[in-house]
């Protein structure tokens, strides 16, 4: 590690203080919220004992769904292209009616049968090892690049503090790996309290103080509008959308909302809840974070108005904070973002570890594994998953992580029919859903790949062009193929499982 000339000691000290605080909390978390239950059980390590009430779940899911990468990337997009970057807002609004309608049912089914992962639920419902494996591998594949992106978020603030080299990142991740290993889901659940409160403070101060310095919100929007007017017409940018952006905006919002709670990390927060009603209450209370996200997005315009010139779009927020805030508050804000990366990274690695343990290890390697054995396999897997993500960030171009995360959203969306439909009706059979998944997964990946790894694809219907989110197209194909195949299966009387669990 070398020290850059512009190292801000005040900011760095504040940042290290908060990092040390959450490290102590992380290691102490194994004793928190612990009942009389045996700790050597996957329900304990991987789901915190399935006992998180409304407030813990609110902090945990809030801390885990609105990631550090969001805090960096959403304002970066808004800074670069304006209104189109704002689709994160409708996305994180419509996601909650979806959560309210689906997730209490999923929780109830999982709790009744002791399921820990989405793939468990699918195996329980359909008795199909093939469909279970498809859901499990999709979850693992989609989560890995997502963890890597949290590291990108952390790297950006480490750079903003004036530190260079990879050592701070490696140290931060090693500490995270160790306390996740020892305390399981309780560690990020406890740290989420600190992280979320810090982020709320940072954002509320920023959205009051920065516009005050820049002459009010009207002035901020005017300045951003003028900045966009100077930009070339492609890619389209501006304070409102161009007509060509209507479909992309709406389909990205809807597709992302459908995919959001299919990820292992968000589902882990659902499975860890105490009751179905805990989830319903959270569907009402979690939008508070969406309001925060909307305000975070506006930091992109504040950066325009402040005339900040970030080296890359991802440096927008750190550069803005360093320019306008005193060192100690910038340090506090950077600590909030760095800790904001730890919570989702921990929950993601736990969700991935649960999937591997239950749906690969137990299903194929050692079906007779004990509860203690499951917890041990999961703990080691969580270490390996984090190590993989770290190596990826250190040795592969960042663009790979971005591309894979984009594909990850498309992939995870393809598990929606398999995971959700069975919670509502008995009509679908496993082979049909598996075929639909394969078509959506492979077809969607192929289209995205041939489009140069862009999330949008243009389809021509009746001579008119519609540019839509490729993940949503793929899941439509997935559902249509599954439905047709299912009609065929039912007509021939095949494809029923012998061991399916009732709702």
């Amino acid at each position, binding site marked *: 590690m070398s020290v850059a000339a512009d190292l801000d000691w005040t900011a760095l000290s504040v940042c290290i203080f908060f990092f040390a605080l959450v490290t102590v909390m992380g290691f102490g978390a194994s004793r928190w919220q612990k009942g009389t239950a045996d700790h050597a059980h996957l329900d304990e390590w991987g789901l915190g004992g399935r006992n998180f009430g409304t407030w813990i779940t609110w902090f945990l899911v809030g801390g885990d769904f609105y990631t550090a990468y969001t805090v960096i990337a959403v304002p970066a997009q808004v800074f670069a292209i304006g209104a189109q970057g704002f689709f994160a807002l409708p996305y994180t609004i419509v996601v*909650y*009616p979806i959560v309210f309608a689906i997730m209490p049912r999923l929780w109830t089914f999982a709790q009744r049968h002791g399921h820990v992962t989405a793939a468990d639920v699918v195996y329980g419902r359909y008795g199909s090892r093939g469909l279970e494996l498809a859901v499990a591998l999709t979850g693992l594949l989609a989560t890995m690049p997502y963890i890597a992106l949290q590291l990108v978020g952390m790297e950006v603030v480490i750079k903003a503090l004036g530190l260079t080299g990879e050592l701070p990142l490696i140290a931060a991740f090693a500490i995270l790996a160790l306390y996740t290993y020892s305390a399981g889901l309780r560690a990020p659940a406890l740290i989420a309290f600190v992280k979320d409160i810090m982020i709320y403070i940072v954002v509320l101060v920023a959205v009051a103080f920065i516009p005050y310095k820049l002459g009010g919100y009207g002035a901020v929007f005017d300045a951003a509008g003028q900045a966009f007017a100077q930009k070339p017409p492609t890619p389209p940018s501006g*304070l409102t*959308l161009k007509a060509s952006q209507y479909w992309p905006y709406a389909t990205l919002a*809807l597709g992302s909302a459908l995919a959001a709670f299919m990820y292992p990390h968000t589902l882990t927060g659902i499975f860890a809840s105490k009751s179905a009603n805990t989830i319903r209450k959270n569907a009402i209370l979690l939008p508070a974070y969406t309001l925060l996200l909307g305000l975070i997005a506006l930091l992109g315009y504040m950066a325009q108005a402040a005339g900040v010139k970030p080296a890359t779009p991802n440096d927008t927020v750190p550069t803005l904070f360093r320019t306008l805030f005193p060192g100690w508050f910038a340090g506090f804000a950077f600590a909030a973002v760095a800790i904001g990366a730890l919570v989702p990274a921990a929950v993601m690695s736990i969700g991935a570890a649960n999937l591997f343990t239950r749906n690969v290890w137990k299903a194929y390697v050692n079906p007779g594994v004990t509860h203690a054995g499951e917890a041990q396999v999961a703990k080691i897997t969580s270490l390996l998953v984090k190590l993989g993500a770290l190596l990826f960030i250190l040795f592969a171009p960042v663009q790979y992580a971005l591309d894979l995360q984009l594909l990850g959203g498309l992939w995870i969306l393809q598990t929606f029919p398999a995971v959700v439909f069975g919670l509502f009706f008995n009509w679908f059979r496993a082979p049909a859903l598996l075929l639909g998944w394969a078509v959506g997964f492979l077809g969607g990946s192929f289209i995205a790949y041939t489009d140069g790894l862009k999330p949008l694809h243009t389809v021509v219907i009746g001579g008119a062009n519609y540019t839509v989110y490729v993940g949503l197209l793929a899941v439509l194909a997935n559902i249509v193929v599954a439905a047709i195949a299912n009609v065929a299966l039912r007509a021939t009387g095949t494809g029923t499982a012998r061991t399916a669990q009732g709702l």
Partner: protein
Amino acid sequence: MWVLLLLPFIGLLWVPFYNTATPALFGFPFFYWYQLAWVPITAVLTWIVYRSAGHGDEP
């Protein structure tokens, strides 16, 4: 009552309806404050569905 949960989808996914700068509110162009307003509206709609389904008395 469940139909109330569809309103945010209509309000937010029909983009041309709100893709304008005016009327502005507190300096926010319509596009921004309209979408931000849907955050509390959606929470309240969900709460109404929650109450009407009788979940308010569950643990």
